[in-house]
């Protein structure tokens, strides 16, 4: 579904991604872990198409097409969803209104009519239960005055409603207490599907106790330095990023010498 080859990206002429390779197939859950500044969020935003990143090398194909060619909104309409690390507040616009506009923009792109109001309301109510969200929540302005946990639950609600093919969760676990984490993880697990791929970007192993990944990649200094199964996350938890980065660095050095 998603194929990233030798991806290099700069922000303000500073190189952040320095050759990322990643293959993601439908039905898989990948975790991308790494220390602060390793390029995790950059990778998530490059996939979503945020402006301000210069792609200097490499390619990204999504369902066989060049992803980097598409605008932010067209990527969304093609089924890419980004759960934001810091969800944005939009005063005066209700959650419901944003969701409706989003659903119908995507339907229009796919040549479908607007979703009838009754059907839409039923959809939203069903999905809201998934993240334990009360109906009055839907009437509130998008993320305005929401607690950290509410914001993250709202992201998962949006994901549930938009049913993306590829969901990228950018540090969805940050700032959550254990109860909120369980709710969010429950929502994510409910959305695991054989036709859907999920990329979980996280700093800590904690979320992965609840959302168990098929693959774990360690990102350091703009590259994937290790790939493994969920046990890699535990190893990381024990040894820390520094040790692993150093080991990777000496491995690269060793290769260069030989």
């Amino acid at each position: 579904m998603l194929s990233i080859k030798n991806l290099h990206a700069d922000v303000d002429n500073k190189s952040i991604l320095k050759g990322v390779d990643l293959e993601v197939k439908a039905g898989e859950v990948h975790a991308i872990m790494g220390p602060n500044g390793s390029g995790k969020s950059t990778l998530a935003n490059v996939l979503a198409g945020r402006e301000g990143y210069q792609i200097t090398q490499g390619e990204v194909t999504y369902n066989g097409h060049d992803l980097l060619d598409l605008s932010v909104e067209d990527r969304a309409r093609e089924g890419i969803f980004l759960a934001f690390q810091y969800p944005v507040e939009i005063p005066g616009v209700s959650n419901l209104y944003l969701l409706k506009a989003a659903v119908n923009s995507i339907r229009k792109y796919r040549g479908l009519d607007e979703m009838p109001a009754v059907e839409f309301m039923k959809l939203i109510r069903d999905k809201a239960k998934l993240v334990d969200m009360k109906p009055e929540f839907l009437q509130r302005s998008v993320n305005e005055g929401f607690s950290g946990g509410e914001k993250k639950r709202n992201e998962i609600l949006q994901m549930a409603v938009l049913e993306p093919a590829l969901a990228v969760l950018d540090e969805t676990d940050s700032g959550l207490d254990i109860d909120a984490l369980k709710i969010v993880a429950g929502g994510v697990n409910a959305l695991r599907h054989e036709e859907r791929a999920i990329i979980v970007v996280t700093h800590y192993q904690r979320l992965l106790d609840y959302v168990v990944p098929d693959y774990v990649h360690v990102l350091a200094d703009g590259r994937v330095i290790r790939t493994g199964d969920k046990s890699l996350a535990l190893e990381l938890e024990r040894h820390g990023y520094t040790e692993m980065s150093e080991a990777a660095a000496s491995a690269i050095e060793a290769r260069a010498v030989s």
Partner: protein
Amino acid sequence: MGSSANEIDHLVKREYKEGFVTDIESETLPPGLSEDVVRIISTKKNEPEFMQDWRLSAYRNWLKMREPKWASVHYSAIDYQAISYFSAPKQQAGPQSLDEVDPKLLETYEKLGIPLEEQKVLAGVAVDAVFDSVSVKTTFTDKLAEAGVIFCSISEALQMHPELVRQYLGSVVPAGDNFYAALNSAVFSDGSFVYVPKGVRCPMELSTYFRINAMNTGQFERTLIIADEGSYVSYLEGCTAPMRDENQLHAAVVELIAMKDAEIKYSTVQNWYPGDEEGRGGIYNFVTKRGVCRGSNAKISWTQVETGSAITWKYPSVLLEGDNSVGEFYSVALTNNRQQADTGTKMVHIGNNTSSTIVSKGISAGHGQNAYRGLVKVLKGADRARNYSQCDSLLMGDRCGAHTFPYLEVKNPTAQVEHEATTSKIGEDQLYYCRQRGLSEEDAVSMIVNGFCKQVFRELPMEFAVEAQKLLDVSLEGAVG
């Protein structure tokens, strides 16, 4: 990230759909202002003598006054002798049936989306159509008359109800109130007149549609609305003008009088030609609007959506004389390109237990400059006055400006006055977020701006709320590729 400034630029490129000129034969006075011109206007309108005297005294007053310079707007000096003070399409004056109205005029209003045939207009809305200096048609007058409501042009009111006009004209905005009000009092040519009798709830929305067409002509309309005891009326005005390279002056006066237990709801959707991207042309909109809650429990509510004009200078105000009277001001002002707006309100608390609410939303884009200027004044004898003010500014791009000047004069210790102000930028973050959910950039901007204005839009009559929302979209419409 540098690209976002350009994008916002694209987004706010506006297209002014009402900028056409109607080719119609007009009778226009040569430019210039003198006592003779004032007399000619009055004579042309066959006015009672008191009116002519009133105009002349206003004119003499005006000669002694100076243009106010305190507003946060900049423009080159206006040559008042270069303006024509009267222009009317050549046709029979006075009330008439539709088939007597020049088809070109009907066509003009049709094109503006204001059909004057009663069967075609929005259900439940009566319209007075003012073209340059005269009212060309008022709809549903008969139906309103059945309810006892008088709705006609002010010229007609001077013929049919001179006593009512004489009693109330200038009672809220005196002829010498300020420079523009004095000018208007001297040369006003037409406008609307409304009288709602005791206990009557006006059966339909009333509206006036102002259109400037002729070149080098000023428009000076005068509106007078009287809601007698226990009555209710909702009134809306809309306005547009052709695109011209010269600036044109619009100096209107609106007076509202709400007696005991009466309520007036006055809504404005102002879309005068704003000038081009470089700031050439556009209307100077220098307007005095004031209402008085004369009796207890009276209520006056101003709602305005200001998207047009090169310069807007207006402060719809309420004098809260009656005990328990209520004043409200809800405003959305958008400035784009080189537009400047200095707008706000004055709430003067005179009676006891009076309350006022001010909600102002300023949107600046391009090089637009937007100032909120408001005064809340609580007189010594006004016990337990309450005011809540909220001024929010939204900036789009980094070359525009927002300014807030809240003035407070509280002379009574029992008053409760609250003021809140925020300034926010339409963030790249917000746009990115919405686009990541599948919305186009245009839809995202529209949604964010409408969200910002929601508190004001919900005060508008429903049909006009939709209209206002569309107008904002058009004003911010651009070629997003």
